[in-house]
């Protein structure tokens, strides 16, 4: 049966290839430590289940040490503009067709794989289908665009290096949630919050959650970081456990309430300050000022969407 472990094997192979190809890239001043980072991630994908809990913890320390001490660098740049323009004119819209293979396979596979429970782990159908879509798209891409077989890996590595350590940020935050759960953070915050919110006020709890996501995101500059905190504090103990809200709706729209916060904070420099500099704006908060007028009403919409949709 095809399970998530097959997907981990594919991902592990990819990270291992990134590490090996990265070692050969002399344009990257930190190629040894960068390669070590991707190699550790490959090891995690391939051997995580055999390392034991403490072993995985040590692996995690290694990743954090490599990233935290500035070990991540970038190698060679992208294909020259002129070459890309020339290729783009020849390839035409087949580029979009290849790009659509991935979401189309993921969507079809999510439903189709469930019909064959003997062959596929139905609970992980989407991720298995995603990996299949990637493999098909890579193959079709190489053949149709007449690219060399290592071209996807080389270009993927270039993008991966530009993402850098941020690649494991979501996984780290999801894991932090486990430590919060073990320490009982949710119970403590839940008690405090239930004192602050009038007893039995569902709307009050939803507003506290949506507003909290936006405000924490504004302070931290990152909705991903705000999410484990707000979920442990309000989302899980109050909205999901006490009021029986649909966890998918509460969390999916709660995350988007956080994104409204991202639009309003200079802490999210990549999105808000960097473009102002890129466009030579005199007012470095000019982009944020244009965003507030959309972010505030949209935050209100999100809060009411949770209130209406998650609690039937």
């Amino acid at each position: 049966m095809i399970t998530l472990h097959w997907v981990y094997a594919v991902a592990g192979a990819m990270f291992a290839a990134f590490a090996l190809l990265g070692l050969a890239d002399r344009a990257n001043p930190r190629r040894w430590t960068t390669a070590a980072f991707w190699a550790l991630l490959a090891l995690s994908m391939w051997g995580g289940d055999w390392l034991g809990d403490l072993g995985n913890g040590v692996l995690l320390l290694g990743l954090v040490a490599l990233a935290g001490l500035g070990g991540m660098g970038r190698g060679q740049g992208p294909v020259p503009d002129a070459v890309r323009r020339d290729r783009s004119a020849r390839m035409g819209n087949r580029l979009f067709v290849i790009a659509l293979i991935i979401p189309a396979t993921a969507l079809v596979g999510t439903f189709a794989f469930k019909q064959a429970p003997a062959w596929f782990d139905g609970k992980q159908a989407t991720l298995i289908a995603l990996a299949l879509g990637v493999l098909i798209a890579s193959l079709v891409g190489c053949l149709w665009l007449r690219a060399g077989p290592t071209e996807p890996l080389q270009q993927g590595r270039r993008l991966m290096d530009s993402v850098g350590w941020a690649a494991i940020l979501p996984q780290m935050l999801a894991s932090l949630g486990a430590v919060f759960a073990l320490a009982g953070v949710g119970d403590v915050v839940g008690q405090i919050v239930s004192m602050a919110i009038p007893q039995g006020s569902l709307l009050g709890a939803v507003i506290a959650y949506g507003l909290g996501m936006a405000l924490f995101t504004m302070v931290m500059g990152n909705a991903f970081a705000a999410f484990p905190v707000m979920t442990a504090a309000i989302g899980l103990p109050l909205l999901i456990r006490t009021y029986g809200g649909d966890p998918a709706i509460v969390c999916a729209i709660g995350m988007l309430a956080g994104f409204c916060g991202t639009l309003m904070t200079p802490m999210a420099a990549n999105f808000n300050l960097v473009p102002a500099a890129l466009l030579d704006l005199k007012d470095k908060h000019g982009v944020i000022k244009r965003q507030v007028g959309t972010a505030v009403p949209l935050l209100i919409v999100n809060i009411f969407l949770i209130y209406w949709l998650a609690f039937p």
Partner: protein
Amino acid sequence: MWVLLGIVVIVAGFLLRFHPLLVILASAIVTGIAAGLDPLTILAAFGKAFNEARYVSIIWIVLPVVGLLEAYGLQERARGLIARMRGATVGQFLAGYMLLRQGLAAVGLTSVAGHAQTVRPLVAPIAEAAAEAQAGDLDDDRREEVKAWAAATDNIGLFFGEDIFLAIGSILLIKGLLEQYGISLEPLHLSVWAIPTAIAAFLIHGFRLWRLDRRLKRGPAATEEAA
């Protein structure tokens, strides 16, 4: 009560711009110690959770395909689509760009457009030219404003399009975190709930762009906006 120190650490750490991975690790250690756990137990719990949440980092397997397509001119192709919208008013053009940005992000093509890729070379100049055609001469403040609208529209289109794609960091982070609390969900089940907000974002921002058009038509004195 002391277990809340971990939350203080993560908020303060991000606020003070320490390395995010170090901040998360510090938060885990502080939370664990405050709960009376010994360091090795904390490390093992963190390692176990990290291993169980590996699928969150599965999203990166799309990079080889995206990289290949970019090397063969996907960004140039997207720029061609944007350039074809030339000739509309600022508001119409930016609304069209937002729709394109949301659509591309919704199928996982988040890096095809962006501030460096499309806004600076293309979207901002086209928006400026359109505003000039509408309002006659643009003074510096209004030129700034129109450029800021271009960047803002890109961000909003990206944020409220990308979560519709089921293999994006935020969706798998939600799945991973809920799994730590014993709730198992499918990525698709999460990503469909990004659609109502995506529509609302387009309507709200589109309405503001429509008002921008009306203000530009009224001439140079009336472009100030409270927002």
